[in-house]
């Protein structure tokens, strides 16, 4: 059965008065991979960042409409943003490990949540690294600096770091765009495995990536949600001409 996890209704977003997202209504199912595609500046990343309120960090952002997660509007006044972000984790385009050891990178999230028991932390670190499919590569050097890992490993470490906080939703903002094909394949495989436990929303410039790994695909253009459907439908027989033009590379 498909359970709805995220749901927006007539959502608008403005940057200093300029409209960046125009009337977005979408239902994102639980424990599926949902991909956002579209040309640069189409609003897909902006929309992703509004799902864990990372846009709050930018001056002059105003949001109208409903953004519901588990049927709760996350822009309500009584919502604790810190708790929201624990539930809705995020992996960024550029891998951004802290200048700490591999272990401390993973333990950072649990520690700020008040977990200080060494045994418990060890367990969380191991589980997170295993779930991010990087445990075997780093288990013998947990004390080494995370900055010594390769780009692909760093990105999986960042995914592990996100998982360590035990989120329900993982937002990914072009997580493989800076990686070589082999590392990309590993990340993609990981994403497909992760959907067993997590709801995953991924922004990607790479249409083939969206095709390979996602269950549903949303096509954004100029701040609007043009088409949203099963990935298979979008890539074999899209409804809208703009979608067809974009995925066949006839754009512009």
């Amino acid at each position, binding site marked *: 059965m498909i359970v709805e996890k995220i749901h927006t209704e007539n959502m608008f977003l403005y940057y200093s008065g300029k409209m960046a997202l125009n009337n977005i209504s979408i239902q994102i199912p639980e424990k599926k991979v949902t991909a956002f595609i579209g040309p640069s500046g189409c609003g897909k990343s902006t929309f992703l960042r509004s799902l864990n309120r990372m846009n709050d960090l930018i001056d002059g952002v105003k949001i109208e409409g409903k953004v519901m997660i588990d049927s709760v509007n996350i822009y309500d006044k009584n919502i604790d943003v810190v708790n929201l972000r624990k539930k809705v984790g995020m992996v960024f385009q550029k891998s951004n490990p*802290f*200048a700490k050891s591999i272990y401390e990178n993973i333990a950072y999230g649990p520690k700020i*949540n008040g977990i200080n028991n060494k045994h418990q932390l060890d367990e969380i670190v191991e589980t997170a690294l295993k779930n991010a499919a990087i445990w075997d590569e780093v288990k013998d050097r947990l004390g080494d600096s995370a900055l010594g890992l390769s780009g692909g490993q760093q990105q999986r470490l960042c995914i592990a*770091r996100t998982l360590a906080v035990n989120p329900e939703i993982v937002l990914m903002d072009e997580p493989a765009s800076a990686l070589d094909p082999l590392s990309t394949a590993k990340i993609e495989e990981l994403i497909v495995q992760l959907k067993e436990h997590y709801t995953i929303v991924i922004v990607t410039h790479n249409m083939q990536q969206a095709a390979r790994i996602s269950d549903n695909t949303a096509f954004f253009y100029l701040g609007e949600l043009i088409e949203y459907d099963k990935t298979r439908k979008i890539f074999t027989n899209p409804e809208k001409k703009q979608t067809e033009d974009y995925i066949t590379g006839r754009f512009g």
Partner: protein
Amino acid sequence: MINSFRKNIKGIVIEGITLVSAIIIIAIVIIMLVVIFIGGKSQLSWEFLTSFPTEGMTKGGIFPAIYGTALLVIIMSIAAVPFGTITAIYLTEYAKENSIIAKTIRFAVRTLAVIPSIIYGLFGLGFFIKFVGANVDSAFYGGTLRWGQPNLLWASLTMALLTLPVVIVSVEEALKTVPQELRAASLALGATKWQTIWKIVLPGSLSGIMTGTILAVSRGAGEVAPILFTGAAYYLATLPGISDQFMVLGYHIYVLTTQSANVDQTLPIQFGTTCVLLLLTFTLNMSAVVLRYRIRKKKNH
């Protein structure tokens, strides 16, 4: 033809002038360093650094001045570094880039940086000694003169004010080298803003904060004007406490050259003291440069 010849001449002349100016500057630096070093070389000894002045300061060492300088910069740093760091944190982490309050603070910092140091001295005298000190005395000591006079504490605080802009600017620069992505990563993990600053931003900018501290110390160690009215002493037979006046390297040179009974006899000690002060500030500045270079390198990674 003639025209281009003239242009050529003009070019050569301009190049010549700029080259000569550059050489003059290098020459001045070399002459200064050589003269000071040759003059002070014979004085530099363990004994000179560790003993008290004797025979009307014509003989003996400069230990009290070194001791006073050290205490001055330590107390100054304790006051200036946390305060400056907190201000820098406010400016980079909390204040909106173009808000009126941020602009006002930046304007104030710039203004502080260009105020002549003698005015800091006068401010220290007026504010710390005549206002704060005097009021403390009348409130707690029944009017007995205790804090209402020049001493190490007031001099250090005055010096802290002087070095505050240096600390603020270098810490701000260091905080800005911490990539925005790391802040975002921390916040996305459910950290609060303060947790992010405390656990990610500050550790990441530690070397920058140290650079700021060293630069401030180096500036403070060499300045004389702010402590003239607020605590520097001509000569003391004992080592000072926090409420005492104190000897300090820069002021000691001034005293030896202008106030001494027999200036000619103090000449070797003048050179020696100058040499020590120069070496001290030079070393401090060099370490700040090295630290800053390392931060830049890290940032470009």
